[in-house]
C-alpha cells in the first residue's frame, strides 16, 4: 500500500503571489521532495489567494499551520530539509508581527485575519439556512429570549444606541436613535419594516444574508418590534430574489412552529409576526417613503420628509424601516453587548461593513471588514488586486448615488463621512473596480442611463434634468461635446442635486460630478482631441491596419461582419472607415498585431 501523504505544502496561487514567482517555488519544492524521496509522504498544492498579497508569496504547511512569508524559489530546499524532514520551522521565513516585533508561526495568530471579521455574515456559508435547528445550535433566538425576559424596551434601545450601529443601507442614520423616535411616537399600531429592496448595480450582500441566514433578520425584527412597541413586521423584498423569498418563507414557518413568532413569545405577552411584501424591482422603492407607498399598494413614489416614517409611515402609523444588513447585526449586539460591538471600527463608525466586490478584481465576492479599513486593503489584499495584472483606475462605491474614487483615495479609511468627503458614499456596499480599459465618461453615462430609467418622474429636476445629463454625456462619447458642454454638465448637476425631491434625484448626478473632478483630463480628451484614452467610445476610435505587420492572411476580412476590409492574399489589407461598425472582430482575429485602435 502506498504511504499516506502526511504533510502538505500549500503554495498561494493568487495573482499577486504568481507574479512573485509562486509557480517557481512550487516547482522547486516538488523537485526537492523528489530529491529527498519524500514524494509519497508530502505533497505541494496550489491554493487560492490567502489575501496576504503584501507579504507574498505565501507557503503554508498543513497540518501544523506554519505560515511562511516572502518565500523565494531558493528557499525551497531549506523548507524541505528543515521543516519536512527534521520538523524544525525555518524561523527566518516566519511572519513577524509588526507591533510586537515577534515571529508568529501559526497562521491563526498573525493578526492578519482581523482584516476581515464576519459579524453580519457570521452564519452565512456556515449553517443550513433551511433548518432552524442549526441556527438555534449557534445561539439563535438567544438574543430575543434575553430581550423579552430580562430587558425593558428602553434598555434594548439604549444598548443599540450605545453600540453605535448606523444604517447599513447607505444613509448611515443611527439605528438606536431611529428606534427611539419610533418608540416615542404614540399610536395603536406600529410596524417594523425590513428593507430588502437591494437595487444598487453590483450589490448583493442583502440577498446573500437572506439566502444564508434568514433567521438572523427575523430575530432582529422581533427584537425591534419589542423595542419600539410594534407587533407586526413586513419584509419588502424584490420578486427577482426567488431563492431568498423561498428561504424566508421556510424560516418564518419554522419560527412560528417553535413559537418564536406569533402570540405570547417566550410567555412574555409579546406578540409579533412577519409577512412578506414583494417589490417589482424599482430602484426608487429602496427609498423608505416610496417603499412604504409601494407596500400600501400605491405607486412607488417618494414623498417629502418630514413627516418621517418613524412618525407617520405604513398606513399612517409609526414605522421603523431598517435594511437587511443592519438587522443582521442586532442579535449579536444584544448577545455580546454594545461595548464589544463599539470596540470594532472607528471613532465615528462602529462595527463592520459587508462589501460586494465586483468588476475587474480577482476575488469577486463578499467580504466583511471593520469600518476604517482602507480601500487599498480591500482591493489589493482581500480582493487580490486587479485582473490580468492591469492597472487600477477607479473604484465605484455607493451605486448610482455614489461616485468614483481614484488612486489618491486608496488609503482613505472606509467609513460614512470619509467617503462623502472624497466625493462618493458608502451606499449599500457595492464596490465596482475599474481598470485602465474603462472609460470614465462611459461609466458616468452608464449610471445616468440607470437613473433615467429608474426615476419615478414625480419631480422635474430628476425627470428632465437627468435625461439632459444623459444626453450631454452621450454627445461627449460621440465626439460632439465641447468645453461648454462640460460647464453645462457641472452646473446642471448642481441644480439637480439641490432641487430634487428625494434621495434618488439628489444623488443621481454624483457619478458625473465625481468623474468630472477626478478624471477631468479624460473628459477634456473627449471634447477637445475627440479621443477616448481607454478605447471604449466607439465613435471616437478607428481600427486601422498597420502595413508593416500585415502579412495578408485575410483572417480579418473573412471575419468582418460588414465586409469593409479589402485586400488580396499576401497583400496589405485596408479598412473602409465609412462602413466599419467598430465591432473589433478584426482586432481580435489578427494574430500579427497588425490592427491598431487609434
Amino acid at each position, binding site marked *: 500500500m502506498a504511504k499516506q501523504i502526511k504533510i502538505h505544502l500549500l503554495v498561494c496561487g493568487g495573482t499577486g503571489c504568481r507574479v512573485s514567482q509562486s509557480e517557481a517555488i512550487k516547482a522547486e519544492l516538488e523537485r526537492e521532495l523528489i530529491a529527498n524521496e519524500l514524494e509519497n509522504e508530502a505533497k505541494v498544492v496550489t491554493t487560492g489567494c490567502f489575501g496576504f498579497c503584501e507579504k507574498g508569496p505565501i507557503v503554508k504547511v498543513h497540518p501544523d499551520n506554519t505560515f511562511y512569508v516572502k518565500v523565494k524559489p531558493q528557499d525551497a530546499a531549506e523548507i524541505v530539509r528543515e521543516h519536512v524532514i527534521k520538523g524544525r520551522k525555518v524561523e527566518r521565513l516566519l511572519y513577524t508581527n509588526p507591533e510586537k516585533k515577534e515571529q508568529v508561526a501559526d497562521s491563526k495568530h498573525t493578526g492578519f*485575519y482581523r482584516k476581515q471579521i464576519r459579524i453580519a455574515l457570521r452564519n452565512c456559508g456556515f449553517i443550513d439556512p433551511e433548518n432552524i435547528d442549526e441556527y438555534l445550535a449557534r445561539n439563535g433566538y438567544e438574543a430575543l429570549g434575553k430581550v423579552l425576559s430580562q430587558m425593558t424596551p428602553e434598555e434594548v434601545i439604549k444598548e443599540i444606541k450605545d453600540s453605535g450601529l448606523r444604517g447599513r443601507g447607505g444613509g448611515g442614520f443611527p439605528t438606536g436613535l431611529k428606534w427611539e423616535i419610533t418608540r416615542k411616537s404614540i399610536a395603536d399600531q406600529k410596524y417594523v419594516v425590513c428593507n430588502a429592496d437591494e437595487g444598487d448595480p453590483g450589490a448583493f450582500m442583502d440577498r446573500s444574508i437572506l439566502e444564508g441566514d434568514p433567521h438572523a433578520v427575523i430575530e432582529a425584527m422581533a427584537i425591534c418590534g419589542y423595542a419600539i412597541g410594534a407587533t407586526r413586521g413586513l419584509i419588502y423584498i424584490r420578486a427577482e430574489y426567488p431563492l431568498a423569498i423561498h428561504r424566508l418563507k421556510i424560516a418564518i414557518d419554522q419560527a412560528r412552529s417553535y413559537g418564536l413568532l406569533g402570540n405570547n413569545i417566550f410567555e412574555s405577552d409579546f406578540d409579533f409576526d412577519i409577512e412578506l411584501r414583494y417589490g417589482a424591482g424599482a430602484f426608487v422603492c429602496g427609498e423608505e417613503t416610496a417603499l412604504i407607498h409601494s407596500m400600501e399598494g400605491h405607486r412607488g413614489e417618494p414623498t417629502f420628509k418630514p413627516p418621517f416614517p418613524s412618525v407617520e409611515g405604513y398606513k399612517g402609523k409609526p414605522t421603523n424601516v431598517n435594511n437587511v444588513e443592519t438587522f443582521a447585526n442586532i442579535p449579536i449586539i444584544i448577545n455580546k453587548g454594545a461595548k464589544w460591538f463599539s470596540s470594532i471600527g472607528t471613532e465615528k463608525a462602529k462595527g463592520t461593513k459587508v462589501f460586494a466586490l465586483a468588476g475587474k478584481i480577482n476575488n469577486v465576492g463578499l467580504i466583511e471588514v471593520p469600518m476604517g479599513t482602507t480601500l487599498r486593503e480591500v482591493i489589493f489584499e482581500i480582493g487580490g488586486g486587479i485582473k490580468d495584472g492591469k492597472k487600477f483606475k477607479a473604484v465605484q462605491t455607493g451605486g448610482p448615488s455614489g461616485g468614483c474614487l481614484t488612486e489618491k483615495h486608496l488609503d482613505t479609511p472606509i467609513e460614512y463621512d470619509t467617503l462623502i468627503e472624497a466625493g462618493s458614499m458608502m451606499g449599500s456596499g457595492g464596490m465596482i473596480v475599474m481598470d485602465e480599459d474603462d472609460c470614465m465618461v462611459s461609466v458616468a453615462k452608464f449610471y445616468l442611463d440607470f437613473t433615467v430609467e429608474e426615476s419615478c418622474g414625480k419631480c422635474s429636476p430628476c425627470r428632465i434634468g437627468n435625461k439632459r445629463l444623459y444626453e450631454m454625456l452621450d454627445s461627449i462619447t460621440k465626439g460632439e461635446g465641447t468645453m461648454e458642454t462640460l460647464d453645462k454638465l457641472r452646473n446642471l448637476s448642481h441644480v439637480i442635486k439641490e432641487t430634487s425631491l428625494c434621495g434618488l434625484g439628489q444623488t443621481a448626478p454624483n457619478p458625473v460630478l465625481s468623474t468630472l473632478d477626478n478624471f477631468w483630463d479624460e473628459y477634456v480628451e473627449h471634447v477637445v482631441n475627440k479621443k477616448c484614452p481607454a478605447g471604449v467610445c466607439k465613435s471616437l476610435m478607428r481600427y486601422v491596419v498597420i502595413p508593416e505587420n500585415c502579412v495578408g492572411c485575410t483572417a480579418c476580412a473573412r471575419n468582418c461582419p460588414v465586409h469593409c476590409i479589402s485586400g488580396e492574399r499576401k497583400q496589405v489589407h485596408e479598412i473602409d472607415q465609412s462602413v466599419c461598425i467598430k465591432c473589433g472582430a478584426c482586432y481580435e482575429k489578427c494574430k500579427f498585431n497588425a490592427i491598431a485602435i487609434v
Partner: protein
Amino acid sequence: MTKIKSLADLRKKKEELEQKLKLRETSMNPENFVQIKVGMATSGIASGAKEVMDYLIEELEKRGIDAVVTQTGDMGYCFAEPTIEVTRPNEEPIVFGYVSIKKADEIIEKYIKNGELVEGIIPVNYESIDE
C-alpha cells in the same frame, strides 16, 4: 413541534441540538465520518452547485463513505463557485472552490478517502466571532 416558551427552554433546546449534532457524528462511525457543506446561494446554484451536491450525495453513498452533505449560504467566494467545505473527522474544515463534478470525484477519492489535498483550496481569510 413543541413550542419554546422561555429562555430556559431555548437554552435546553440548544444543548439538545448540540448534543444531537455530536451524537450524529460519534454514532456514525467516528473514524470515517465526514461533513460536507455545499454553498447553495444564487451564485452557487447558477454555477452548478446543485448538480455537485446531488453527485456528492449519490457517490458517497455508492462508495460507502459515512458522510453528511448539507446546504449552506454564500461563503463569499463568488469568484470560485461552486464552493464546498469538507470537514474530515477531528480535522479543521477545508474549503474547495471551482468544484465541478470531476473535481468532486477527485476530492472524494483523494481528500475524503486519504486526506490528500488537491488543487482548488480557498484559504480561510477572515476571523470568526465565535469564542
